[in-house]
């Protein structure tokens, strides 16, 4: 599996594109993800302690489970699509529309290796990174916003109950969703190449279609993956 990827990827422009996208999607999106995770974590903990009357430590643990099993792997790819999906589709669409993809193929170079593969791998890793920010923010905010502010006690209880399988599965789900979203937006952008054959495909409509389909795909993928992995997570409780 790694050998064909290695043959496609180790080209200098592809590597540079990979790191550029990883920086744009995985590092510069921190603020948005942290803000969303903080707002949700604070709201959840307040709801559980005030309205449902749960103990603080139990609320923090429950917030962690909700984040790692439901909200994190679902909302992180949604944020990724909202922030980067259109940018990816426009970038690919401009290249394809100006005939650059055709020019690459004419020189015997696969545009997939130059842009799509780096973009897909960067999208996948970005979603994994964003999920880590999301989970870390959720833990910090839920501990801080719980009524009985006992940081060490609550963290000690939380870490004693954290399940490694949950983390791995959540990272895999987020990574898969990121890769699929990148591939879909790239594919819709690449259809701009048909413009010069009078197919009547304008870049803005391709971009919006790509973003919409990426969102639908992520929702369906999340539904499928959560259904498939439910038996694993339930037995690990």
């Amino acid at each position, binding site marked *: 599996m790694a050998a064909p990827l290695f043959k496609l990827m180790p*080209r200098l422009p592809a590597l540079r594109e990979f790191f550029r996208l990883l920086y744009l999607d995985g590092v510069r999106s921190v603020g948005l993800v942290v803000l969303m995770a903080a707002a949700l974590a604070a709201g959840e903990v307040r709801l559980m302690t005030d309205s449902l009357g749960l103990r603080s430590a139990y609320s923090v643990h429950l917030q962690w489970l909700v984040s790692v099993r439901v909200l994190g792997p679902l909302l992180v790819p949604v944020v990724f699509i909202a922030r980067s999906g259109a940018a990816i589709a426009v970038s690919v669409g401009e290249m394809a529309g100006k005939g650059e993809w055709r*020019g690459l*193929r004419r020189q015997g170079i696969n545009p997939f290796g130059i842009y799509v593969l780096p973009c897909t791998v960067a999208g996948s890793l970005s979603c994994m990174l964003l999920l880590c920010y999301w989970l870390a923010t959720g833990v910090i905010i839920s501990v801080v916003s719980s009524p009985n502010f006992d940081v060490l006690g609550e963290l000690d209880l939380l870490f004693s109950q954290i399940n490694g399988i949950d983390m791995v599965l959540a990272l895999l789900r987020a990574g898969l969703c990121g890769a699929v979203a990148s591939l879909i937006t790239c594919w819709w952008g690449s259809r701009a190449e048909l413009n010069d054959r009078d197919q009547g495909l304008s870049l803005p409509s391709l971009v919006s279609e790509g973003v919409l389909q990426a969102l639908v795909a992520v929702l369906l993928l999340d539904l499928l993956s959560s259904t498939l992995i439910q038996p694993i997570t339930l037995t690990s409780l």
Partner: protein
Amino acid sequence: MKLLPLQQLPQGSRWLYRGQNLVEKESVIDQLCAHANAEQLSYGLLSLKGALVSHLSLAENIWLPIGWRLPRRLGSVAHRARELLQCLGYNGDRASELLQSRSRDLTPLEAQAGILIRALILEPHLLIFDADWFTRAQQQQQQPWQQTMAQLNGAAWIVVADAEQPLPSGNQWTSIAPGALLER
């Protein structure tokens, strides 16, 4: 007339294919490049549309088709490209600046110089021209361009034009019949 396999085209021969319209012209260039790739032939493509990837530097664009196939370092290709840019009349600093510029920031003439240099570095057996290459005839009459283009005289040339494009002057062209490229 049927076209010979591309590898067997005589050195220095000049061929012309005139398509009915733009779509046919583009399709024929695609086919020629695909055949040349399939035959693992060393070939250069001199076309203006989409020839350079806009978000890569000129040096990377020149290096890309070479480095994609052969273990050639970007630095060595860029060094040779700089020498050739100087032959085209760009002084040392300007040549270095051009090589570092993204291709979307280049003027059409600078981009054309980059495409020409890429073809020269490939040392091609065959050159495939889109006829739009010859639209800047006035610039190409200048001595540095003439001298640099002369380095490609040994290769076989195939020019692909559509029905309305003027033919490049100064060569004896052998016409390729429509459909000949498909009958290999």
